[in-house]
């Protein structure tokens, strides 16, 4: 606490408010994490009430854990994802203070603790319901055995815990009988035996993520005996193949979501065994799997509850799509992103049959033309989401149909398409639109975007990456028309200047600003953003040559939520960097080719910025920084990424796109 509490007068009107009412007021103070801080500074009683009210805590530094846990005694959810360094001692503090109150803890971004701390935590906090241990690659079976002491555990995430084996999972299976959600993604040491034991012992399991495990159908038969299983992810399980899958007797009557993406050894032969799940299966993901042909489509036709299918990255045949069109169910969601072989004929036969389609993803289906789009818009009038990045054969006129017929669209991705102003004007009729991606659309200009800004009042996200034709007036219209804007990308829109930024500063909810390669932007524009957009957490001003230290100082002062910043190729020097270091939650920083940066300035900034997790630096600094610094930062949980790229001159957008096409 920087300021002293204001000396109170003997009587405050606020004291008349009952605690319940203040609690209700506090319930609404959720938008900016700093709001509650301000609230608690009002008076002593407010401070006390706020301390009692807080259930959720996301500390920035593990050093202050003792202090904050002393203050907030009723915390039930502890998110430590901002604290890279959590030692056994820190866990000791937590378990000592929180005791039975603690129900959920997130350690997914933390390191430096061991099974001793975990077992201490589990012993003292008997009511723990949720533990996230993702990315704890160092933890071994002893840690899993410690977790197994949490008898009330319902949700456990062990993603990327590569050193845990069947033995550890076996302990968890025996100890945590109430588990409902379990993720073992990338736990490469876990096989059939461990997973099989989970299925035998934890009968309450609702959701199970087994992605990339070396499992076979052996344990699958046990898993599918689970009576409550609703969600099963088997992404990239190469051990599951046709023969064994076909032999399975699937007894599960509750499975709703099945993800078998990247299971390359499974074809329609094995999938036909899914028929026994017909009564329950609603969502199926077969992305990056075998070829979608008639046989595969027919093998799934009996799934009577199915409403969502994902076939991303598969080879698709026309007859396969036609067979999908002939399914008796009515699909609500279909994803054919990056599928080879999607043609007008095939796609049309699907969309004309499934008229209730809400979400359609046809990204990179380069063969389809305006015909497909005409059919989509004609039959699927209730579309909510349409993603069609890089459908390069669709002509500009076709996009007009979208606005005319699909009035309920909320999400539209037309990145890298031929869409022009007429299309945009038509799309502006979709009043519900909240996300619009227009990256690399070289045919659009201010005219179309101004319509969007005027009509799409609910817009939260707009992507104008390399849409070279636009100027400040577009952004002005959007900033004025869409007060709820949260994310904007104006990278490489060369004509954008400080005027745009000043207008955007009125969008108080803006949290992501990407303005790479906008040479007209200066520090004053950035200062306006810093003052206006308090919730900014991601800022990319790479290649904004006119941004210097003067822009960093207001940023450091006002943007206390900033987590991620890219300053490469800008004119920021040691001073700017040092001032940024005062932002307590800054985690990731990219500083390549900063001409004004000296090794000593960098060292000072790195030492001062206590929350850093990731620093991207030019490789030339590697030899210039003292080795002790690396040790120190490593102990704090900060990692370095070294880049040795040479300075690159900027290309104009048309030329860039040509180069892109050449590369393909």
């Amino acid at each position, binding site marked *: 606490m920087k300021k002293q509490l204001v000396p109170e007068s003997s009587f405050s009107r606020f004291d008349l408010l009952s605690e319940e009412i203040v609690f209700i007021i506090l319930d609404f103070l959720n938008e900016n994490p700093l709001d509650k801080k301000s609230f608690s500074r009002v008076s002593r009683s407010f401070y006390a009430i706020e301390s009692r009210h807080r259930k959720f805590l996301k500390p920035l530094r593990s050093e202050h854990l003792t202090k904050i846990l002393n203050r907030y005694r009723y915390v039930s959810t502890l998110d430590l994802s901002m604290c890279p360094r959590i030692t056994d001692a820190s866990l000791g503090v937590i378990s000592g203070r929180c005791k039975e109150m603690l129900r959920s803890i997130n350690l997914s971004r933390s390191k430096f603790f061991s099974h001793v701390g975990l077992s201490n935590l589990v012993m003292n906090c008997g009511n723990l319901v949720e533990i996230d241990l993702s990315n704890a690659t160092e933890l*071994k079976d002893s840690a899993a055995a410690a977790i197994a002491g949490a008898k009330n555990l319902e949700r456990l995430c062990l993603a990327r815990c590569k050193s845990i084996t069947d033995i550890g999972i076996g302990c968890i299976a025996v100890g945590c009988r109430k588990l409902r959600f379990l993720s073992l993604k990338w736990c490469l040491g876990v096989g059939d035996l461990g997973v099989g034991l989970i299925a035998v012992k934890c009968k309450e399991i609702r959701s199970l993520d087994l992605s990339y495990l070396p499992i076979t159908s052996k344990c699958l038969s046990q898993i599918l005996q689970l009576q409550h299983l609703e969600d099963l992810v088997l992404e990239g399980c190469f051990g599951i193949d046709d023969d064994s899958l076909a032999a399975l007797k699937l007894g599960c009557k509750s499975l709703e979501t099945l993800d078998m993406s990247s299971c390359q050894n499974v074809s329609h032969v094995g999938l036909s065994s899914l028929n026994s799940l017909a009564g329950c299966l609603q969502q199926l993901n077969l992305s990056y799997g075998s070829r979608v042909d008639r046989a595969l489509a027919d093998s799934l036709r009996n799934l009577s509850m199915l409403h969502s299918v994902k076939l991303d990255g598969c080879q698709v045949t026309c007859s396969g799509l036609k067979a999908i069109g002939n399914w008796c169910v009515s699909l609500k969601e279909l994803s054919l992103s990056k599928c080879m072989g999607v043609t007008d004929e095939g796609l049309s036969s699907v969309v004309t049959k499934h008229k209730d389609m809400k979400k359609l993803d046809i990204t990179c289906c380069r063969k389809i033309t305006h015909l497909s789009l005409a059919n989509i818009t004609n039959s699927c009038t209730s579309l909510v989401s349409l993603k069609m990045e890089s459908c390069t054969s669709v002509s500009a006129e076709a996009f007009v149909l979208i606005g005319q017929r699909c009035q309920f669209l909320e999400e539209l991705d037309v990145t890298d398409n031929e869409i022009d102003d007429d299309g945009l004007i038509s799309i502006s009729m979709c009043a519900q639109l909240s996300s619009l991606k227009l990256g690399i659309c070289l045919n659009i200009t201010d005219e179309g975007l101004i319509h969007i800004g005027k009509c799409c009042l609910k817009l939260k996200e707009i992507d104008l990456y390399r849409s070279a034709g636009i100027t400040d007036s577009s952004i002005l219209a959007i900033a004025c028309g869409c007060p709820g804007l949260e994310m904007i990308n104006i990278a490489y829109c060369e004509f954008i200047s400080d005027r745009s930024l000043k207008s955007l500063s009125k969008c108080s909810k803006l949290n992501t600003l990407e303005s790479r390669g906008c040479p007209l932007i200066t520090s004053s524009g950035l200062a306006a953003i810093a003052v206006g957009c308090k919730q900014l957490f991601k800022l990319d001003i790479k290649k904004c040559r006119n941004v210097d230290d003067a822009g960093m100082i207001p940023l450091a002062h006002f943007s206390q939520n900033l987590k991620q910043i890219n300053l490469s190729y800008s004119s920021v020097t040691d001073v700017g960097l040092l001032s940024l270091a005062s932002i307590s939650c800054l985690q990731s920083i990219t500083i390549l080719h900063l001409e004004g940066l000296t090794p000593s300035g960098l060292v000072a900034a790195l030492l001062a910025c206590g929350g850093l997790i990731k620093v991207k630096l030019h490789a030339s600094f590697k030899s210039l920084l003292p080795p002790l610094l690396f040790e120190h930062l490593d102990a704090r949980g900060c990692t370095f990424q070294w880049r040795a790229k040479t300075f690159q001159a900027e290309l104009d957008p048309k030329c860039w796109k040509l180069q892109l096409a050449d590369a393909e």
Partner: protein
Amino acid sequence: MDPEERLCADTWTKSSSSSESLKTPPNNTSFNDFNTQQTFSFNNPFGAQISVTSNANNQKQMSDPQESNNTQDWDPRAMLNDLSFLEKKIHQLQDLVHVIVRRRAQSAGQADEILVQQQQLMTADLTSIIVQLISTAGSLLPSVKQTICPESSISQQFGVTNQTAGVSDNVVFQHNNSVNKLEDPSDMTGFFGAEQNCPIEDHEMKSDDDADEGENLPPGFKRDANLRMHMRGHGDEYKTPAALAKPHKESSSEPILIKRYSCPYIGCKRNKDHKKFQPLKTILCVKNHYKRTHCDKTYTCSRCNTKKFSVIADLKTHEKHCGRDKWLCSCGTTFSRKDKLFGHIALFQGHTPAIPVEESKGSAGPSNKVEQLEFKYKSDAPSGCSCRNVMDLEGSGEDPISYFSPLNFETSCIDGFQEFPRPPFEDSESSFSFLLSGSCDYPPKNGRYTGSNDME
């Protein structure tokens, strides 16, 4: 024991051990058969006879004194062995006849039944020695090829014993044509003896299917299966299912007789009197079964000093992976295979896989446990010990009480563990502290559990 009976027993021991030392060719099973017979004879009130109830039409064939000789190559050294064996046997025979003569002289005052029994015993002994003599003598003939009707010496032996009116049925014959009888297990017990529609084939040969094809194999492979496994390394053409399949037997045109054996230990599941009698397939199986189940385990693993075996081959198998694959359960049970451990854990409530504590060096724990277990094992053993000669054969310890246990190793093991003080499993928190406190006693581990990214 009557001193003369003891003498008698000694002769048996001698004879069996001498035949053991003979190293007769594996297909010459008559000796082995004989040994087991002897082994069983002593507490069997009716002696060691084998009954072969043959069909009338087979009778002739049975008693047909056809000489069988299975030796493929004539080996003078083997012959020398055989000769010395004959010599020993003749001495034994002499001793036996002496005993008989002496008994006849004393027998005036003794009760008739005992006399009859003793005489039966003697006759049985005589018979078996004579059979051994004949068969060994037969194998001495160097040039005799295997005859078309390979009725082995056993059949003769059975013929003879049949004549001597033996009642015991340690060897059960069963013809494979009479499968319908096999289906009813209760029927089987009443069906000792054999229906011999065909000449008896040497079973040892058949079961191992090695010796008869030995000629075709290059030196270095005793079994054809081993050769086939070896040949896989020489190229893909040897990996086809056809190449890996068992070679077709030409001799299969003749119907084969299936022999079944019974364990002499009464009450054992392998004993013919047991309700759910499960016969043993070969005489070797009988031997190994008997040693494993009813004998003391005398071979101790030199590495872990814990595991004991009564069959030396078992010890060797164990030593191959002793100390490497130790999968532990929180209850203290060890498993050589992980899937066995997980099967165990899936079965029992509250058991968890145990994670070895790095710093636990304690070998004191396990040794204590083993002693306790050993004690239990011995004290539970019955005082009545029937198969003394087998033990002598094994050259095992002095304490006769410890020789046999009605329990097999597993059950006594469980008893031992139940006495081991330990918190109940249901309270996994405390059983957990039991794990962590280092009081648990795993042998020092080596890498198995610490290996990161150890993909199975």
